[in-house]
């Protein structure tokens, strides 16, 4: 169960990144035909990021304590003290940007409003870049747990 929960949150985050890329591409090719798709894609980004928040929060609160203890005793202690601490708080910035994204697409006529389109592109770029950075941070944390396990001395 722990592994499944651990797997869920980066999966939802990647789905959020994919729908944000979808928003970005639709904005670059905007016409009357894809306005509805932009709203669906931007709203999907919000939903996936909320799912990421819930699943990562559940894993962090319920299961992370044992991994944290392992990491802090291992050779990559910075993976908790620096990477995880930064990751868990930078995530809230992505969450806020994801909550703001559909408000722009729904409340503005994107077809005729260049500034609204620019704002959507800015937000999408920030969400995509920051999310990918946090995915890399997650990989470093997972690797730090493995490093700690490899360094454990097994007493027969």
């Amino acid at each position: 169960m722990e592994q499944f929960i651990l797997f869920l949150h980066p999966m939802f985050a990647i789905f959020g990144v994919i729908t944000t890329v979808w928003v970005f591409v639709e904005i670059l090719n905007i016409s009357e035909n894809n306005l509805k798709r932009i709203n669906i894609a931007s709203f999907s980004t919000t939903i996936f990021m909320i799912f990421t928040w819930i699943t990562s929060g559940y894993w962090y609160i319920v299961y992370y304590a044992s991994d944290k203890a392992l990491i802090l005793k291992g050779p990559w202690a910075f993976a908790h003290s620096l990477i995880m601490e930064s990751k868990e708080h930078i995530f809230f910035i992505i969450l806020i940007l994801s909550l703001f994204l559909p408000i722009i697409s729904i409340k503005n006529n994107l077809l005729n409003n260049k500034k609204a389109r620019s704002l959507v592109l800015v937000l999408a770029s920030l969400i995509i870049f920051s999310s990918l950075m946090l995915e890399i941070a997650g990989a470093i944390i997972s690797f730090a747990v493995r490093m700690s396990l490899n360094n454990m001395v097994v007493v027969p």
Partner: protein
Amino acid sequence: MTILTETKSELDKNTIGFGLASIIVIIFNTILTILKELYSPILTLMKSISVLGVKHHWLVHGLVVVILFFILGWYFSKKEITTINDTFISKAIIWVTILCSLGIIIFFLIEFLK
């Protein structure tokens, strides 16, 4: 073929309201992150608050940030804000996101190196 006609349309007032809220809440998130690490009574208070039977500072932190975003967004959307132009929101969100993310990383780097 659709021809795009650019008008001088401004951003919708909800967009400006929630845009301002985003900027303020992202800064608030960074300040709260640093404050709760440096001033233990805040961390203790956040740990003591129960959300759905769970007491954890990260849970409280996230809920405070999201609730504040909606309250400020709703408040600013009701106001007639004329002093904020469209490009300010875009530029401010870019800079605030970059600087606040870097601020959090640098803060934890300093804490780690102590």
